[in-house]
């Protein structure tokens, strides 16, 4: 079976296809659109989220990775929904003369798409959760999350208030988790009606700036978390967290706290291995010394560097949504840099190859058996 990798960039989507995960063909789709997220549902339809500072947010869908049709609906807030002032300030939701547009709440980006239990979920900024139960033809806000008390005081991360992580439990449709920069990590046990913060003992500075969280939906309560301030693991659905940095490069952050900084965290379900891409702290946000390195943990305890095939002169970053596994056996891994290079491994990270370069800034990567 082959693989398709959808690489969302600031100017379109690179679609890389391979039958053997060694030789790749590439096409460039959705030209002109920043492609911020993608996902494929159980029926084999692939969705790509686009946004534009001029023309807003939209979704495209394709059944063959080549012919993309725009859907006639997308997640949107209601006219009466009130926005978070700090998010407005950060994302410059201004009019033509630079004045704030008022108190409305706007969807300015789809950060993640997550198919589960026959539905398609979307995480957006200004932070919110939406669901479609008709393959994107209509979207409903999950008010239990979006309208919860306290959202007006959530503090945004550098990129605004983005709901970038959605996780589900294959055995329990009522349980799900979401992560927001920098409002924290939340869990619902009643199908989205009520939510509880799950950040206990995770180092924070103001709010909890969760960067990315992964799980295996079949063993959903084991959670793997890359936080702004370090890497953590939970075995109880987020009720408690343990620092998980043995073997990772630790750096002094701008606050003086010492931890391992990075954005994506990918979990390979068949092997149980996890992968992160450490960067040299929040002040630099590129690989330490320019050596691009992926770190792998196979035992849930210690991490080991993997650099075979990765450049020693890389001063680009890897964003939170820009790494993915294809969940094949053995697991293939793919990640892209802000400098437009894509690296792939078909042996759980033991060796890497650059399979594309010269792309615009890479914002999202997803991989599918195809």
């Amino acid at each position: 079976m082959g693989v398709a990798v959808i690489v969302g960039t600031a100017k379109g989507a690179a679609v890389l296809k391979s039958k053997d995960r060694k030789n790749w063909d590439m096409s460039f789709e959705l030209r002109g659109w920043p492609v911020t997220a993608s996902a494929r549902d159980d029926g084999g339809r692939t969705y790509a989220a686009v946004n534009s500072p001029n023309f807003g947010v939209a979704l495209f869908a394709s059944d063959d990775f080549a012919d993309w049709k725009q859907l006639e609906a997308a997640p949107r807030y209601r006219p009466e929904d009130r926005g978070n002032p700090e998010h407005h300030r950060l994302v410059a939701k201004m009019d033509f003369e630079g004045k704030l547009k008022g108190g409305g709440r706007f969807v300015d980006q789809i950060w993640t798409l997550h198919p589960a239990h026959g539905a398609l979920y979307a995480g957006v900024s200004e932070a919110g959760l939406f669901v479609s139960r008709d393959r994107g033809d209509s979207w409903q806000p999950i008010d239990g999350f979006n309208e919860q008390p306290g959202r007006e005081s959530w503090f945004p991360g550098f990129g605004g208030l983005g709901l970038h992580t959605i996780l589900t439990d294959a055995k329990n449709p009522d349980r799900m988790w979401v992560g927001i920069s920098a409002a924290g990590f939340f869990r619902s046990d009643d199908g989205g009606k009520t939510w509880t913060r799950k950040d206990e003992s995770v180092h924070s500075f103001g709010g909890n700036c969760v960067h990315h969280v992964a799980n295996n939906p079949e063993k959903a309560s084991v959670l793997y978390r890359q936080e702004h301030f370090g890497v953590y693991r939970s075995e109880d659905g987020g009720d408690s967290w343990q620092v998980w940095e043995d073997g990772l490069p630790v750096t002094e952050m701008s606050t003086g706290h010492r931890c391992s900084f990075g954005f994506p965290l990918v979990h390979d379900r068949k092997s149980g291995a996890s992968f992160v891409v450490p960067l040299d702290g929040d002040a630099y946000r590129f690989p330490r010394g320019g050596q691009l390195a992926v770190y792998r943990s196979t035992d849930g305890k210690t991490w080991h560097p993997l650099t075979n095939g990765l450049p020693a002169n890389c001063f680009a970053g890897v964003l939170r949504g820009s790494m993915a596994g294809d969940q094949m056996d053995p697991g293939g891994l793919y990640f892209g840099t802000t400098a437009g290079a894509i690296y792939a491994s078909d042996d759980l990270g033991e060796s890497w190859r650059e399979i594309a370069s010269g792309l615009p800034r890479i914002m999202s990567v997803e991989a599918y058996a195809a």
Partner: protein
Amino acid sequence: MSVRVQLPPVLRNAMGGHRWLEAEGTTVCEALCDLGQKHASLALHFFDEQGQVRHNIVCLHGGGLVRARDMHAHSIQEGDELVLTNALAGG
């Protein structure tokens, strides 16, 4: 009255590659509303959650530039051509 509206390149894909669309209206904003009613995907791009024309959209009409905030009051005539684009950005 009927006018022709030229779409910006990134929106043409949603309209099957068409560059020009026919619209009805007596103001620029009415023409955009008409297109949005005919094509739901265009409404997403033209109007934000408050129902306002997205603030960075501009229209070239009769040799002049019409900003989003002025589109509801800017009159158009039968047979006019409107060129939709975004405000200049970048260096």
